[in-house]
């Protein structure tokens, strides 16, 4: 019954009356669109393009925003309010009439823009995409303006509240992400990006909420379901808030104490988050202290502005204390909850494949028919990983066990020779995935224990085959035509490599020497973990021994090295048809072989 009462019996005529009052706005709007979207492209000879439609849409946003602010301003002035509310029309009926009037106004402007867009002759994108997300933004924006009008008692604060409320889901996301970063600091192996991606892909579908998904993934019927759901929720808020509004507080910045508290907490939380980019390298305690101090300062200032007083009232202080208790509880609970997962290690037999590496951006295809695309590792399936160009998935049980052993050692101790970070992704037989992310920190008293486990892993045949197929896979060259080779000498006295030397270059002898050198290197290198996590496309593990060394006092020093480039006439992403090696004296057998060709 109450819902029925929310529509005035003369709503249609009241809307027409409202539209008549907007005659001037219609004229101004048409004039703006006509000049910027039609006349200017004609004058400049550029024809109407997507950019002009996009500009037109921005103008529509601006015009609708201004109109909403004007139309809902009756709630922000005692005289207007008394005039409007004293008439035989309820608050809700009045709001409904205002919403419908603005929706009609918006529809007319968007339709005009849509009709103009049909005249685009050259298009580099689907122009309809511009309308797919902007139309729901406009409609939800009108509803948000109504909510903001109800909650505030001043038109300027109403405008600001509309922007704040419209972007509230994004603000939540920023806060949640910050809390994930705290979890990352608390819990070993947890990564805020993984948590964040999992959260937004599985639970908090912000892409759907803002209709961006329908631009990226295409338009489907869920678009209307999402739009209807959002509008129902927004209207539900309008319904509840309109009934509770205290009109006598019109003229204040915010008329609802609840909203005042809510918004001061949200904005005060965003301030330290915004500053966190400046303090990105602080430790956990520094991050928490910075958050608390900046939050307190921002909270005080926001409340001083909202209350127009430098004295805080008791409710504000209670709310601050409440939030601080919540924040402390969050840290304690997060620490407690993540403790049980920190030491979790899989059983090798349950694992289908494992990825370990520093690379988290995977370029691959979902199926053979799919196009290649880039994804964060946290969004990539095992199939996607398998088809990736720059990823090795270890599937041998012994190798998996060796990675688990390395993992165990990393959990025990996160010291290393220098700062580095990497991801381990376990793909379970049952389809589950376990991600762990580790930051190792430079410690002068690092005990070297990780190297023991890493070397054991790297000396497994499966690892060698997958990591360096050119060197260890004897079938690698089968079926491939003879590669073309170029060799450059790098040294203090640069010499050219004679063509005859390249002609005598034997790939098999070269591989045999590399194998000897690598076997030795993998057993002896004290930076083996770095090698383990590098992309398989990078053979630059030789880098520390060659190329240019940077010294703080000395000029660049060039070490003696042979830069070998090998390319096959094979055009597949997966065949490694080109790679290069820098062979220094740290790889003596190979170095000597190349040097012998030059003699």
């Amino acid at each position, binding site marked *: 019954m109450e819902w029925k009462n929310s529509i005035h019996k*003369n709503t249609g005529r009241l809307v027409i009356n409202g539209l008549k009052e907007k005659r001037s706005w219609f004229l101004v709007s048409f004039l703006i669109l006509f000049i910027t979207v039609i006349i200017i492209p004609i004058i400049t000879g550029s024809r109407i393009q997507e950019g002009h439609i996009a500009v037109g849409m921005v103008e529509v946003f601006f015009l609708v925003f201004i109109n909403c602010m004007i139309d809902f301003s009756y709630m922000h002035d005692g005289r*207007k309010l*008394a*005039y409007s*509310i004293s008439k*035989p029309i309820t608050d809700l009926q009045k709001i409904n009439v205002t919403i419908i009037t603005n929706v009609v106004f918006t529809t007319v402007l968007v339709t005009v823009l849509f009709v103009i867009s049909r005249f685009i002759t050259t298009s580099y994108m689907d122009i309809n995409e511009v309308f797919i997300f902007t139309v729901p933004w406009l409609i939800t924006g009108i509803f948000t303006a109504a909510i903001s009008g109800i909650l505030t008692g001043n038109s300027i604060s109403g405008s600001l509240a509309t922007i704040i409320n419209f972007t509230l889901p994004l603000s939540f996301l920023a806060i949640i992400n910050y809390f994930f970063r705290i979890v990352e600091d608390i819990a070993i192996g947890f990564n805020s990006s993984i948590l964040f991606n999992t959260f937004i892909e599985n639970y908090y579908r912000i892409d759907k909420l803002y209709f961006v998904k329908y631009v990226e993934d295409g338009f489907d019927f869920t678009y209307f379901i999402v739009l209807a759901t959002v509008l129902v929720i927004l209207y539900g808020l309008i319904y509840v808030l309109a009934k509770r509004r205290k*009109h*006598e507080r019109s003229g204040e910045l915010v008329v609802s104490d609840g909203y005042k508290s809510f918004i001061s907490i949200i904005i005060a939380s965003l301030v330290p988050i915004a500053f966190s980019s400046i303090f990105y390298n602080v430790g956990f305690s520094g991050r928490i202290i910075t958050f608390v101090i900046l939050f307190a300062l921002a909270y005080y200032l926001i409340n001083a502005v909202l209350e127009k007083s430098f004295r805080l009232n008791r409710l504000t202080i209670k709310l601050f204390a409440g939030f601080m208790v919540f924040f402390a509880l969050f840290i304690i609970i997060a620490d407690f909850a993540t403790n049980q997962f920190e030491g979790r290690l899989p059983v090798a037999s349950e694992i289908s494949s494992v990825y370990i590496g520093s690379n988290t951006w995977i370029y691959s295809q979902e199926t053979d028919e799919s196009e290649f695309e880039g994804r964060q590792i946290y969004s990539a399936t095992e199939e996607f990983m398998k088809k990736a160009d720059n990823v090795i998935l270890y599937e041998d049980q012994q190798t998996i066990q060796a990675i688990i052993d390395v993992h165990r050692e990393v959990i025990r101790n996160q010291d290393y020779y220098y700062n580095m970070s990497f991801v381990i992704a376990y793909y379970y037989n049952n389809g589950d995935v376990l991600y762990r992310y580790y930051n190792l920190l430079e410690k002068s008293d690092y005990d070297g224990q990780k190297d023991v486990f890493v070397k054991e892993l790297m000396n497994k045949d499966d690892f060698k085959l997958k990591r360096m197929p050119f060197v260890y896979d004897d079938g690698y060259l089968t079926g491939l035509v003879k590669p073309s080779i170029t060799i450059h000498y790098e040294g203090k006295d640069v010499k050219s490599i004679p063509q005859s030397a390249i002609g005598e270059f034997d790939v098999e002898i070269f591989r045999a020497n590399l194998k000897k050198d690598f076997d030795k290197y993998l057993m002896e290198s004290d930076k083996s973990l770095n090698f383990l996590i590098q992309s398989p496309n990078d053979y630059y593990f030789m880098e520390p021994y060659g190329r240019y060394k940077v010294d703080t006092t000395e000029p660049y020093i060039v070490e003696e090295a042979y830069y070998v480039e090998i390319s096959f006439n094979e055009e597949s992403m997966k065949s490694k048809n080109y790679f290069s090696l820098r062979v220094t004296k740290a790889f003596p057998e190979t170095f000597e072989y190349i040097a012998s060709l030059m003699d």
Partner: protein
Amino acid sequence: MLQISLLNKSFRKFHVLKDINVNAEAGQIYGLVGSNGCGKTTLLKHIIQVFRQDSGEIHYNNNLITEKSEEIKDFYYVQDDLFFPQNSTLKSLYDFEKLLYTDMSLEKFNRLVKYFKIDINKKLNSMSKGQKRQAAFVLAMAANPKVLLLDEIVDGLDAVIRRKFWNVLIKEVIENNITVIISSHALKELDNICDKVGIMHEGTIIKEEEMESLKENLKRVQFAIEGEYEDIIDESFTLLKSIKVGSVYFVTLRGDVDAFRKSLEDRYKLLIFDELAVNLEEIFITELGGAGYGMEELDS
């Protein structure tokens, strides 16, 4: 009948309306008078449901008044600080209000426009304060409300227009049996038209009574005596105020005037004794004086 019982309202910690009780009959003009800032406008805004009370109820013909009740559609409120939508004229506003008020009468509208000589096509915001009040009053009358709430409606109007106002209002009350609650500081004018008065002070109705009864209860006399007068205490009357102007004393009292005269005669040689007519202003000052309002002495 419009009945307000135990209505309370606080603006944050400030208790602006305290246990308000009002009883305004149909066919009656109810004068709401009170000290500045006592809550008259706030009370009117509660009746029209612009503000929502913290407690208490408003009934009209025994039906509870809420924002959604049918009865409130017959209420019309003309506020003190008038507002008209931008660029609106009296004609356009009539057309708009016709969509909201079911009994809007074009015939009455035209008649009143002619009577007040208002240009219906002139932008209301370019009109003088007095013209705006006339326009607002015409719209209110044309809406044929059953309850009319007028807040300081005659402020800024000249005597001729005020007389026109009262003529229209009294005619309307008589012919259509409407309830009018009028808040004003023009006590002398209210004196002539009000049937009932509610006197407000600091958020409470300190007195609500029929005008006739108020005047009957409160007496004012002037007398001259030989010697110096001192206030008399007696069970049959209560002296409220006495002042001396020259050799004549003016006394306001409740109770038996004849008993007071006899007491004077018993004590003094009474030279002159006349009973004076009591007006609303006198009642107002007396009642508020009783509540401690305006009793401060100006330090010399």
